[in-house]
């Protein structure tokens, strides 16, 4: 494949020297299969193009955005070449074997240089140009409007008002400019309270449950130490309490484990003392901190990434990683919040340490349970915009967007998406979006291709002039929202079940294979119900259009159309609606790349039944040789298009430990 193809993709590539290495093999990490091809390194992507593809099918290509690469590792030289292992933040793991050691070193060192952007301007979003004019770009940014969102909730109202104290980010530079507080909370109270809260993050409204006039507020931990108090802060909570006539008290949910909160007291921080605050009910929820979550996911990935995993090791690994336990803890906390608000009609104040990780998780998940609007595609974007982006979840630090402190990195947002996925599994009809939307959002949190999820807070975003210099992810996602529709969504569900009550039985918390193993095709179902139903729906729509057209033409000729007998829908495979490029989303592409990609789309077929820890027979009669999974020219149902025939690489795989006699 000619190199100039990639140069037209993005003009910025021109100034970077281009590394190219031929005769590279890419190994599948769960089988002994491999693909050989050429590796290209451009300014934005690492591209692997398969060579020697069969004539009938296009070559497989893998595009890896540099921002997605979490680590590059050069393993020791083998007889086949120099192995290079690349781990990506979207959980892709690729294993290349580069024949020439010098090539490998070139790629390795270039990647290391490209890997760690130090300033925001180096990020892809600033060079990414989807061929939109400024007006379109501006309109894209206006699609989500938080002012309108608070209005939808019924705020401002007689008890809650918009305050301008943070207009210039003077009170709290990690909060947005527009904040909603109880009408009785005067400016001195706000200022005083903010001084008593870590990072100045005083209690503000994040969700208003109109039906019971109950509020969900959020803040950071109080600087109470062992005995300090703050009258303004106490008045602030009093004001929140007074704004709700349903309940005499406010729940204060400290989302940390009690031990962590107590340890914070020694550092002059801590939690609210029930004796000092009138009318509060204080409660710990026990979600672990970012460091625990980071190592938990790390362990999980190690477990599911290991070859020849036995069922026992898998389950024990799932358990010891603790990931599902943590996911459940977040869901449990959200359920607790939801119950307090919707059943008791009480207002709840949620905080953790700084109020931008666990607090964001619990508040947004709680709102998702309480309000059907957030279960729509647009509503979900609004929710993320509100609870995560505007309230200052540190996306740049947590997602490692810039070269920074590795201790600040943590999969808090990923975990939130995981929790949402668990809910979509429990309530298949309640959500307008499918898991593709969650995967796509996750993809772009790390791709740094759009401005929304860059930087740590609104103030930084304004300083970077992101709205003028980058594009909005929401606009892009909304423009192709038909791809993210959940075909089982039933809008009537919201009326019958306005508040979701998820099961907390542990067997309902599952490992999200499509997230953490999304690029390991051999692990996935070979047929997708989601894709199939979307195709059927699209076919149906087209057929209805055709019927209308034909009826119109009949009328033109003065013939009244006959009544139709419903027939089985056409099930052709060539009429896919536009949809994400593969079952599991591929790396983000520009429009042009996408076109090119569409033409060349091609996935390797996986046919193995998996690696086998062969139960060796000890007697001499055993016949265990290698059997290579033969590729086939056809495949199953809807994967027909993406799976193609391909010559089998000359590598021996040990499936079932069965002899392959014919070679």
């Amino acid at each position, binding site marked *: 494949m000619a190199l100039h193809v990639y140069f037209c993709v993005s003009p910025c590539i021109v100034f970077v020297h281009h590394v190219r290495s031929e005769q590279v093999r890419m190994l599948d990490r769960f089988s002994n299969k491999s693909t050989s091809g050429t590796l290209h390194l451009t300014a934005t992507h690492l591209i692997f193009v398969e060579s020697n593809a069969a004539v009938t099918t296009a070559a497989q290509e893998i595009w890896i955005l540099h921002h997605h690469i979490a680590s590059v590792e050069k393993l020791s030289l083998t007889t086949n070449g120099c192995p290079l292992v690349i781990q990506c933040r979207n959980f892709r793991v690729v294993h290349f074997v580069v024949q020439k050691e010098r090539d490998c070193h070139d790629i390795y060192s270039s990647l290391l240089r490209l890997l760690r952007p130090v300033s925001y301007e180096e990020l892809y979003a600033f060079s990414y140009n989807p061929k939109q004019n400024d007006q379109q770009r501006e309109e894209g940014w206006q699609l989500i409007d938080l002012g309108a969102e608070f209005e939808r909730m019924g705020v401002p109202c007689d008890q809650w008002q918009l305050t301008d104290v943070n207009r210039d980010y003077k009170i709290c530079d990690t909060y947005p400019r527009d904040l909603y507080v109880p009408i009785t909370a005067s400016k001195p109270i706000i200022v005083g309270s903010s001084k008593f809260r870590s990072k100045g993050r005083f209690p503000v409204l994040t969700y208003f449950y109109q039906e019971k006039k109950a509020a969900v507020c959020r803040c950071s931990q109080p600087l109470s130490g062992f005995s300090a108090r703050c009258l303004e802060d106490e008045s602030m909570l009093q004001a929140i309490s007074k704004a709700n006539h349903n309940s005499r008290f406010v729940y204060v949910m400290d989302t940390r484990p009690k031990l962590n909160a107590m340890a914070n007291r020694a550092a002059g921080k801590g939690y609210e003392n029930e004796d000092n605050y009138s009318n509060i009910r204080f409660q710990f929820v026990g979600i672990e901190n970012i460091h625990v979550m980071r190592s938990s996911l790390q362990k999980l990935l190690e477990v*599911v990434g290991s070859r020849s*995993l*036995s*069922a*026992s090791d*898998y*389950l*024990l690994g*799932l*358990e010891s990683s*603790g990931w599902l*336990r943590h996911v*459940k803890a977040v869901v449990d906390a959200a359920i607790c919040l939801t119950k307090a608000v919707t059943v008791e009609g009480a207002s709840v104040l949620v905080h953790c340490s700084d109020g931008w990780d666990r607090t964001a998780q619990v508040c947004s998940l709680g709102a998702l349970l309480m309000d059907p609007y957030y279960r729509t595609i647009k509503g979900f974007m609004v929710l993320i915009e509100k609870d995560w982006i505007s309230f200052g979840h540190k996306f740049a630090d947590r997602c490692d967007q810039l070269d920074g402190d590795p201790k600040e990195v943590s999969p808090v947002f990923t975990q939130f998406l995981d929790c949402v996925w668990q809910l979509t599994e*429990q*309530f*298949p009809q309640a959500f307008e979006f499918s898991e593709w939307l969650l995967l796509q959002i996750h993809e772009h949190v790390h791709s740094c291709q759009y401005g929304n999820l860059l930087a740590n807070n609104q103030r930084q975003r304004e300083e970077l002039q992101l709205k003028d210099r980058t594009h909005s992810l929401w606009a892009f996602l909304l423009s192709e929202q038909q791809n993210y529709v959940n075909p089982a969504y*039933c809008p009537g*569900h919201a009326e019958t*079940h306005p508040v979701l009550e998820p*099961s*907390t*039985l*542990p*067997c*309902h*918390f*599952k*490992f999200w*294979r499509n997230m953490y193993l999304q690029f390991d095709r*051999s*692990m996935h*179902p*070979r*047929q997708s*119900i989601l894709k*199939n139903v979307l195709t059927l729906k699209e076919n149906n729509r087209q057929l209805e259009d055709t019927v209308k057209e034909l009826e119109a033409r009949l009328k033109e000729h003065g013939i009244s159309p006959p009544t139709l007998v419903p027939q089985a829908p056409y099930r052709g495979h060539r009429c896919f609606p536009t949809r994400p490029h593969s079952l599991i989303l591929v790396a983000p592409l520009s429009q042009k790349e996408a076109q090119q990609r569409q033409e060349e789309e091609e996935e390797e077929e996986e046919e*193995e*039944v*998996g690696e*086998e820890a062969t*139960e060796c*027979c*000890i*007697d001499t*009669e*055993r*016949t265990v040789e290698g*059997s290579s*999974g033969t590729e086939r020219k*056809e495949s*199953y*149902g*809807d994967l027909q298009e993406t799976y193609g025939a391909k010559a089998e690489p000359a590598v021996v795989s040990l499936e*079932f*430990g*069965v*002899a*392959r*006699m*014919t070679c």
Partner: protein
Amino acid sequence: MEFSEHIKTANVEDVVLRRPFYQPTKGTLCVTGHHLIFSNRGGDSARPFLLLLRNIDAIEKSVENLPSVSSGTITLKCKDLCVLQLDIPGMEECLNIASSIESLSSLETVSEMYPFFYRPPFLSLQDQWGLSSTEQHYAQMKEIHDGWRVSQVNRDYSVSPSYPPAVIVPHSIDDETLVKAARFRQGGRFPVLCYYHRETGTVIMRSSQPLSGANRKRCREDELLLQAVIDGSELGYIIDTRSSQQAQQARMTGGGFESKSCYRGWKRLHRQLEKGKVLQESLIKLVEACGDQSHSVDRWLSKLENSKWLSHVQTALSTAGLVAECVERDGHSVLVHGSEGTDTSLLVSSLAQLILDPDSRTLAGFLGLLEREWVQAGHPFQQRCAHSAYSHVRLRHEAPVFVLLLDCVWQLARQFPLAMGFSEPLLLRLAKEVYASDYGTFLCNSDQERCVTGVKERTHCLFQSLLRANERQHYSNPLYERTELAIWPSIQPPSLQWTCAFSPIQWPFDMC
């Protein structure tokens, strides 16, 4: 045969029934020979709640006898894993009811069981019992008529008590040879055909273990039979569902394996599949894990692991995949056996057929497969399914091999949601029917017993009932799209899923 002997109190008023997903309701409880009937007086339109006594796995009772209150509570744990509770006023009534249930639910006489009394209006006893016979099945497969024939050697069940009267064997092997080969196989289960692969012309056979014993006995006829299977081809595989140690040990008790020197061209592979008590205990632990009330993910995962159920699923699928791979990819015939050839062999051979054969993935095809490979092939249903996961009775021959099959099929269906003509409700229904049923299909341990007890004349066949138009619609997969290809499952643990179907309190996911 007097059921009334066991019924001390037939009717109790004001009983409160508690069951999952339903509000507790008050009504009248009635015990009959085969059922518990609970009717809600108030609800005129509501149908009475009917529970087959046969479905009850364990019964627990507690009574309170004070001057002011005299009442009792009966907890019924069913074989379909449902748990019910009955609050009965009056201690004596409660104890009477409990003892009636205990004795009636453990009746062992086949001809007294409910299927012999069940007479639905939509089925007639005049019809053929079952979907197909060996002869009909053979007649449909024109392509095997050259090399294979139907043998009636077992017409009086004398050659193998657990085989059906007719089996399919190589054309070149006469009945006399079969009789001799049968003597060399446990239970007389000589190798018979269960699947013919059209593209490669290779077959899957199954049998029981050869009785080579400690002094390595040989049987010329058995060798001839297997030789005839791979006639012309140089190689065949024997998949032994025991570990090679187990196979070696089996020789001490008269069993054994096919040694290489005697069976030229046959290669043996061992793959250990658990069965019997180990499997039953696995199910018990699994159900216990599902019912764990601690709501702790860690406990759940560790209990799930401890049950080893998913490992059994994984091994079964991978062994079936191995068989299918030998046949389809390598083009060699396969003989599957364990020891008796009535449990894991059937599991593996039927799963392999599902992987390979599109015909067995339709609703009718799947039921036909179950009939051939389980009912006719002599899986001892009555012994294996006498008790389920709650029973405190000492285990004898119980083993949820069939339930394991259903789980494996479910895993296949999850990985190929369009390839199966039937749906998950069918698998759940079968799991329930196999333990307690209105139909005679899963009664008895073999075809012979079914003939002797008159099951085929006096009961109805479940499979026929499931294929009636309205049932068929309910159990069909709306997304079904036939694929002619083999469906190779992934057996990587992250590809396997746990189902909450084993939970006594299944959460009602919003089903509207």
